[in-house]
């Protein structure tokens, strides 16, 4: 039972570390309701345990969450742009070549734009919240995975992009990459 037990514990830890308040109330659901979306965890089908969380609105949700996973990956969740520096502090502490960069029009663009393979990072969305799970060991040596964060329709969209060297503190709008649409 070790593998199932360890995987479940990793997800429980992620829930706890993200500081997201959980209150469980059961509501009747109609069959027509869409499948709840997934946030955090491992997004590829059948690849393990993923965590789906519906965040409270206007409550005690945190600005960001950085959660190391048992397989070495790291999940970054940004609820508000104000959480960018806090997330980067945590990423630096973890010693990973991943940084969040705010998208601002006056900043330099990422050139060239390198699409990110699923082995490096996957993005999942739950309601208004987008998370990126990064496998730091898959980031090429000398590169940094920049998570370009921008506000879209009142929510924070995060687009991963590989950059040479260290990540900038901000980037121009990333037009070439399509952010995972918020559902």
């Amino acid at each position, binding site marked *: 039972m070790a593998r199932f037990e360890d995987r*479940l514990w990793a997800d429980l830890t992620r829930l706890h570390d993200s500081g997201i308040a959980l209150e469980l109330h059961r509501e009747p659901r109609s069959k027509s309701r869409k499948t709840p979306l997934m946030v955090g965890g491992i997004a590829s089908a059948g690849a393990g345990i993923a965590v789906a969380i519906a965040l409270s609105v206007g409550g005690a949700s945190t600005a960001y969450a950085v959660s190391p996973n048992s397989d070495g990956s790291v999940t970054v969740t940004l609820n508000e742009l104000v959480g960018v520096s806090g997330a980067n502090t945590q990423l630096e502490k973890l010693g990973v070549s991943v940084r969040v960069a705010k998208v601002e029009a006056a900043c330099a663009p990422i050139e060239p734009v390198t699409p990110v393979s699923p082995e490096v990072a996957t993005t999942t969305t739950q309601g208004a919240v987008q998370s990126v799970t990064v496998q730091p060991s898959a980031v090429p040596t000398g590169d940094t995975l920049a998570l370009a964060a921008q506000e879209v329709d009142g929510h924070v969209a995060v687009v991963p992009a590989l950059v040479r060297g260290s990540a900038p503190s901000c980037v121009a709008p990333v037009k070439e990459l399509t952010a995972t649409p918020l559902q």
Partner: protein
Amino acid sequence: MGYSIADPTSRQKTAAEAPSDPGAPSKFEGIYRKHCGAVTAFFARRSHDPQVVADLTADTFVEAMSSFSSYDPCRGGARPWLIAIARRVFAKYCEDVTRERDVAHRAFIQANVDADETEELLRRIDAEREGRELIKRLSHLSPLEREAIELVDIAGLTPKEAAVALGLPSGALRVRLFRARGRLRKEQLHHGKI
């Protein structure tokens, strides 16, 4: 089966607020590691489906984590506390199945078990085969009598722990256990199984 998240400002305590005790996360892990198997076995006695077993086990520990701040070890220990949560989780699941709700709609944990985990869970389900068969044979007993037998004679809880898990006074549990064992013994003698 669906869950939604209520406004946490309406709650008195939340999991995020719980660590006024900084050791709470490691204490919870200790409880988790010690009793994950028992909770999984509880559901393995109730379902052949490893996905269902995985999901319900996950649901139980999410709920346990959320309510850990209110957990009182003096009230009977972690195992009966977790079993009590597991019972509620299973009851909700059965209700959803009965009402034909889309039980695939899960709001907080979707345990998409991989092949290795499936194999582990299937081994657990197989290990609980005798327990499942016994529970089927107990179907004529009242639900509480059946659960008393299961928790004490199959899951290995003490009568006091089983009482806590079932929300019964200890004496009432012992009476039910005594009656249930008596009926079972009578039935076995009748059918020549002893």
